[in-house]
């Protein structure tokens, strides 16, 4: 009885707040982010905070957007825990009253459902499906986990084909870990290479996901004999974590592998600090989804200058770039929305044939990129202990995912 009475009471005073102008004044827009600053595995995206801050400071130095300065409250840590990510999103929206979440860069982000329900825009990057099928989530690479039938990227395979002087007659082997996320990546990336003309000779998902295997022998044997008893021309590793790649590549090289090694995560200057890692990764072709720092593009020069101002002497990392470009897209969308700012108007701008191109990350097109990747990427090669641009940022047409 009591419960029913209380419920009725609730109903009476429900839905009082909810206006779309939270975090917005005439002179400021408040934003904050969610990052995986700490995690049990040591993986950390905390540098994205520096990147976003660098971009916001530039905007503020230029007088803000439509007369409003960006008030960046910093980023919450989700500890790579979905429930904590959800709590962090709630804190930013309900307690800190931010207008939007920038940057969101957490592989296991759990706040998507809440943000979508509340109509709060969020900007960032992740390979997971959280960025897909929403109206509020704006990943700067789009949705990297498209559904079957939706567009899937071809840039990695195509860039690689260009780099190797054509794909015809070349074979590729894709190694993933034994988890549904990694297996899914294996499917899309195999397709990318096949679309570019490579011949797929193996797609293996046997590696344990939680920790590297004590023994690489069985995996290396499979790779070394996959191409009719010989090694493949290209090995693609869809494994999150440098240590997996270091282990796999060292074992492969010891077994005499001479082909191309490529993966999405090795573009990380921290690797160069350790001689063994650098040696294992020597020659690897990494595939970042932003213009490499070694590029001569003016956007990259601006990026470096902005970061140097906020955090002097900092080593550039991909997380910094992710934070920076996420903030950049947010600012562009904010500018295009105009002076009269509500979340509804902002989302209407973002979801109404919005296109923004920038040499730093290629191109985004919304609402299209809510359901498929933006199709852009670059290649860098580790040569003589230093990264070099192998292929600058370029966008390719997607093909439907089989």
């Amino acid at each position, binding site marked *: 009885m009591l*419960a029913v009475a*209380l*419920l009725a*009471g*609730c*109903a009476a005073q429900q839905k009082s*707040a909810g206006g779309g102008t939270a975090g917005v004044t005439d002179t400021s827009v408040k934003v904050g982010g969610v990052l995986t600053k*700490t995690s*049990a*595995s*040591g*993986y950390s995206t905390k540098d994205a905070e520096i990147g976003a801050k660098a971009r916001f400071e530039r905007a503020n130095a230029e007088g803000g957007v439509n007369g409003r300065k960006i008030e960046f409250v910093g980023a919450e840590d989700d*500890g790579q825990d*979905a*429930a904590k990510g959800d*709590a962090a999103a*709630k804190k930013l929206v*309900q*307690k800190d009253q931010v207008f939007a979440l920038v940057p969101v860069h957490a592989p*296991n982000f*759990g706040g*998507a*459902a*809440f943000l979508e*329900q509340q109509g709060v825009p969020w900007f960032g990057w992740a390979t997971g*499906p*959280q960025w897909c*099928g929403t109206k509020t989530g704006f990943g700067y690479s789009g949705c990297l*986990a498209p559904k079957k039938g939706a567009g899937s990227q071809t840039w990695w395979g195509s860039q690689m084909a260009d780099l190797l002087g054509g794909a015809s007659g070349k074979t590729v082997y894709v190694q993933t870990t034994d*988890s*549904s*996320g990694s*297996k*899914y990546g294996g499917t899309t990336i195999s397709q990318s290479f096949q679309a570019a003309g490579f011949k797929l000779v193996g797609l*293996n*998902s*046997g590696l*344990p*996901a*939680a*920790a590297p295997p*004590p*023994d690489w*022998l*069985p995996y*290396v*044997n*499979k790779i070394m004999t996959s191409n009719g008893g010989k090694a493949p021309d290209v090995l693609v590793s869809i494994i999150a*974590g*440098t*240590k997996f790649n*270091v282990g796999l590549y*060292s*074992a492969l090289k*010891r*077994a005499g592998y001479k082909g191309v090694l490529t993966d999405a995560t090795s573009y990380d200057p*921290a690797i160069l600090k*350790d001689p*063994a890692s650098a*040696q294992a990764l020597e020659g690897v072709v990494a595939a970042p989804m932003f213009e490499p720092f070694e590029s001569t593009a003016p956007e990259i020069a601006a990026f470096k200058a902005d970061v140097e101002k906020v955090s002097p002497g900092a080593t550039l990392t991909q997380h910094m770039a992710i934070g920076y470009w996420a903030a950049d897209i947010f600012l562009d969308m904010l500018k295009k929305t105009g002076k009269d700012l509500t979340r509804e108007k902002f989302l209407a701008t973002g979801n109404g044939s919005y296109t923004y191109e920038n040499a730093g990350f290629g191109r985004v097109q919304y609402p299209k990129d809510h359901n498929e990747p933006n199709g852009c990427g670059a290649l860098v090669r580790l040569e003589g202990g230093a990264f070099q641009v192998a292929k600058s940022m370029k966008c390719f047409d997607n093909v439907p995912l089989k």
Partner: protein
Amino acid sequence: MILGYLLSGLVTGAIFAVMGSGLTLSYAATGVFNFAHGAVGFLAALVFYQLNLAAGLPAWLAGLLAAGVFAPALGYLLHLAMFRGLARAGETAQIVGTIGLTIALPALGLFVVDLLGLPSADGTTLPRGLGPHPALGFEVLGARLDTDQLITFCFSAVAALGLWAFMRHTPYGLRMRASVDRRRLATLRGIDVDATSALAWMLGSGLAGLAGVLAVPMLGLDATAYTVLLFASATAAVFGRLRSIPWTFAAGLALGVVQNLVAGYTDFLQEITGLRTAVPVILLFAGLVLLNRSRERVAGSAAEDAPPPDHLAGVPLWRRRLPWVAGLVALLGFTFAGSEYYVGLAAQGLVLALIFCSFVVVTGIGGMVNLAQAAFASMAALTCGWAFSAGWPLFAAIVVGVLAASAVGLLVALPALRLGGRVLTLATLALALLADQVLFQVDAFSNGTIGWALPALGFGFADTSDPRVRVVLLLTLIGLVGLLVRNLERSASGRAILAVRSAPAAATTSGLSGPRAKIVLFALASAIAGLGGVLFAVSKGSITATDLPAFSGFVWLAVVVLQGVRRIGGAVLGGLVAVAVPELLATWGVSAQVGAILFGAGGMILAKHPDGVLAQLAESRHRRRQARAVAADPLGPVAATPERATAAAPSAFAVPAQPVAAAPNASVPEALFRLDGVVAGYADCTVLRGVDLDVRPGEVVALLGANGAGKSTTCAVAAGDRPVSAGRVLLDGLDVTAWPAHRRARAGVLLAPEGRGVFPGLTVEENLRTWLAEPDAVYERMPQLAARRTVLAGALSGGEQQLLTLAPALARPPRVLIADEPSLGLAPMIVRQVFEVFAELRERGVALLLVEEKATEALAIADRVAFMRLGRVVWAGPRAEVDGDRLTAAYLGVT
């Protein structure tokens, strides 16, 4: 190729072998299954890394310091701070304590690294190991190995051999095994079990440290990877039946081979995500079910902890309920006045509280420790999401989800019928990991990484998107669960469960079905966890396979147990604490690692107060009241003894103090062993109320008395096995009251305890060696023991066991021998033999205190006799003065 896989697998399996051996060692030696074994390994690896990198020491020296000095020292510290207390706490507290450490130790390490500004430990790269960096490769018989693997294998082999030799062929190893076999008896044989378990923890930690340092070039400084390694090694330990180090070692090597074969030849399993990774877990489960059938207890009874006394029993009902009612009113007030964010937090806390209620049912009432609760919650939520997306109405989907969880609970409960104690706990652990790694990876069930979206639950006039509605709904549900729990405890089936838990054999003979009661409990708890899981999903708006990871189930258990797992109040408090603490830490800007460290410290508190915060509060309130009552009591010193055994008290106090003032010759100075006005008892019940007794060398004193007179307690006090609250124990004029049992035993006070004083798990020879350096003298005296020297003592007949109990005393006579009921349950011929032994010992000048309920044999040999009644020696005198009247008086209380 297969040869290469075998060889390479053997080499890499060495890491499981070392880790597993340490686990087996510490479990076998102390009875605590150390979930933090992997965390200790991680910490040692971290120290190795810092010594090498920050301090610039060469790798071999850093490794030596980390595994050989730091890890054993850590083991010793943990022994002092925690394990020592945990060994005597119930099993639930043991599991929770070590789980707390699993979280706290890595956090502590990383926090210190942060604080000191050392090179950060990046879990994503591979630091160097003991060998050359980068490792050099070479080929043996078609297997490509590297130097790190070779070093791992060599160190493991040396460690295993050394360990085996240590356990089998050194007195330390024998003492360790004796303490494991019968802890209490070991102290009576002069073994300092505390020092023994300290040694075991140091060795175990040292092995964990060695494994940690060896594994670092393979795993990186990643605490999770070390926990994964621990679980794989647990498989090896289980195949060693948690007892045998050689078997554990072999199983570890075999596990390496199996993993290689699975990786090499089972591509057809590739379609089922996670199945191949889960091979160690599947083996763990199989090993548990097939090999580790509990010999002691049945029907999954795990927690052997008796419920704590209800300190609030005397408090009126309204007063007991008052804090909770006040709390509820405050919470409701807050719900309707507080901001949306904080009310949402409270609602989240209550969701957890609802899930935590399932622990009250399964652990609090059922005495089973379930580590798979997160899997049940996840199972229900995912099933609900799946059913809803398949077009079912939301309410129906919720019901389906809850039913699914309870069905899985039923499936898990079935093996629980055969397993007991920790084995059941480990089985639920295996299940939790299996669900995470295989079941929830099935895309059709969990919808890949995206999961299922769920709408708010509507009631027509309001829905759960409003946190206030959630709070009210959850409070209602928790209230219903509370009623259910109360009815369970009071119902026939509840009593059946309690009966099965405290005395399985008795319950069975009374016609109570333990297994059925257990199954009902398990399924019910799973359903409650499932309901909580569904509400978690509904209030979040979606559920994915990773929202409720297996490890959160371990943390949950710890949170609830810290508050008190026997009552719903503990669950509610636990839920609220679980959301409030991180929020507070974040608000104050404290590192999340501090929270984890505090959580681990909770485990140390638990070692002292195994029943949790709530019970502790009630107890301290009780103590305060008692102290006040004592202060107000004019009788002072009398009341200062803890509560008296009520029935006996009036008559005992009616007797004037010092009624016998010791018999005439009691004051003779040559008394070798003497009890002087000893008061002692158990917890709140005083048994001995001023016992005076003395024994001279070469004399047999028979202590007689009816059942319950306090004879066995007198023996225990004499041997130092029970503490004394007043009075003194003197050995040769020296006050030994404060000496622990093992020290008294070393000084020559030997107690042959009631029942058989043998270590059933040790051989006859090993039994003798616990007291004798060289057992040959015994074999000459007792050829029947010589013939069976390699037989386990547990396999001897009752008579042989009693001879084995007394034999060491013959070969190396103690100064004082106390024999508690030595003739109990023995054939007359053996009894005669036993008393011959006593006579011989008397000849050799031993002071004998013989405790018997049956007077005849004891009187035949005794020089003097003491009668006990109601905790006092009521008469003591020469054998000659004992006649039928005195006997009658002593036994029947007739004067």
